[in-house]
């Protein structure tokens, strides 16, 4: 766990956008073509992948899959036939008929971009050996949206940055990253507050760069950010030793004793407790269990567990109960 810096880097993701040359892209695709594309992807992947026809699935299942990042929101809302293929270990997911015909994504634990990239390349090669992938020597992989031309790759790392958030350093980080062809965004929250102190750093450049250089530069930047976050945490601990501890235990108290809790309050508590666990202040909460609770407490995942659609009051009651079961 230490080697992947999981207390700061939550997960890594590599995504490839690919299209089959002989079929129109999403906006011009009809249901017959979409079914043919799904069938071609199925045949190309062969054994070792489970298939889920998303068009047949209920709202709660699909919603919970968006929440745990198994699929994109656009994919969930697609009006065409669309299917998800998942590898046996669950790390490789192939969305057939998303915005692009194929969206291949690999999500791995902690900071493990190279591993995610290698796995993605393996499946990409398998698909390309069987399918006529749309490609141009100058423009690279041809994609529905021209912003993805070139590598068609987005690599990203989900980061937990409570101390850089607290000290306001995030803003200068954001400015510097844009100069490096990368971007940082708060993953949750509607305003400027990044709920849960969770951020996503990803590449913005796809044309005129190699995948290896993107992965390597991103990794270097993430390692630097981890270093900065750890330094900021240390500074806060040195100057105000009780601040993190008080917040962590106070939030733990809320989760232990509250009977109703809404999403945003839970996400704030999650961030406080996660810092406490990372700094070794709280020993009886497991980081993986806490991260799992973060997903399980989301509306659709929660309602799926409840087995029914529920209003916000019912959800807040169920959330408080569910969290107690998980941590």
């Amino acid at each position, binding site marked *: 766990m230490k080697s992947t810096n999981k207390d700061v880097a939550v997960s890594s993701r590599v995504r490839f956008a690919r*299209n089959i*040359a*002989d*079929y*129109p*892209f*999403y*906006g*011009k695709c009809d249901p017959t073509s979409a079914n043919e594309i799904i069938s071609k992807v199925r045949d190309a992947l062969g054994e070792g992948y489970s298939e889920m026809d998303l068009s047949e699935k209920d709202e709660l299942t699909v919603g919970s899959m968006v929440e745990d990042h198994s699929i994109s929101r656009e994919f969930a809302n697609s009006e065409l036939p669309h299917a998800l293929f998942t590898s046996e270990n669950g790390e490789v997911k192939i969305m057939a008929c998303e*915005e692009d015909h194929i969206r291949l994504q690999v999500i791995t634990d902690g900071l493990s971009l190279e591993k995610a990239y290698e796995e993605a*390349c393996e499946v*990409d*090669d398998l698909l*390309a*050996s069987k399918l*006529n*992938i*749309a*490609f*141009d*020597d*100058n*423009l*690279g*992989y*041809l*994609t*529905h*949206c*021209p*912003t993805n*031309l*070139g*590598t068609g*790759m987005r690599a990203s790392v989900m980061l937990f940055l409570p101390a850089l958030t607290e000290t306001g350093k995030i803003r200068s980080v954001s400015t510097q990253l844009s100069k490096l062809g990368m971007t940082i965004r708060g993953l949750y929250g509607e305003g400027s507050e990044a709920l849960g102190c969770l951020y996503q750093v990803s590449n913005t*450049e*796809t*044309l*005129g*760069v*190699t*995948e290896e250089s993107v992965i390597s530069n991103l990794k270097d930047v993430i390692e630097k950010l981890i270093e900065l976050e750890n330094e900021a945490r240390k500074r806060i601990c040195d100057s105000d030793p009780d601040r993190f501890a008080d917040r962590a235990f106070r939030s733990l108290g809320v989760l232990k004793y509250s009977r109703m809790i809404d999403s945003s309050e839970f996400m704030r508590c999650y961030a406080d407790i996660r810092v406490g666990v990372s700094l070794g202040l709280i020993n009886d909460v497991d980081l993986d269990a806490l991260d799992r609770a973060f997903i399980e407490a989301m509306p659709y995942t929660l309602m799926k567990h409840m087995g029914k659609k529920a209003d916000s009051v019912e959800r807040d009651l169920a959330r408080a109960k569910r969290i107690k079961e998980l941590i």
Partner: protein
Amino acid sequence: MLCNKCGKNEATHFMEKNVNGKVTKLALCSECAKNSEEFKFDPFEGFKNFNIFDNFFGFPSIGSGRGKMLETAEKRCTLCASTFDDIVNAGKVGCAECYKVFADELAPTIKRIHGNRRHIGRRPLRDLTESGEEKTAKEDKEENPKDRIKKMKKELNDAVKSENYELAAELRDKIREVESL
């Protein structure tokens, strides 16, 4: 693509006219388009119908100035039947073939997003060489065939000048091989 009229600025306004099968094309920069009788372009009309992709594709969307400009255009993609207006309105490209059919029209947008760049990354596996090795050689990653041929021809000239005919023969064969692809 440079403006057909001034030859200085990047062309941002395109018109294709089909009169009884006779097709004429015109590509102008915004300054020349403003003064062009053929476009009769109201520079403010685009703002009345603003959509997010106006800036993205560099054109006002359909129903505005551009709609008038291309009312006679009949160019359609051979695979998905998209017109360039369809692409501008959707903010997305219709199919892989559109990138070829509308290469000139899309070029300014691609340049705006990515700059003057060429792909140097991975390639689909079907581009394997006969020996089964992926094209990872530096020259393959950094140059397109035309640039490669140009470079090899220069090397060939240098080889002849220095009377290195063995190398010259090797280069001649390589050039033929690339040209035949």
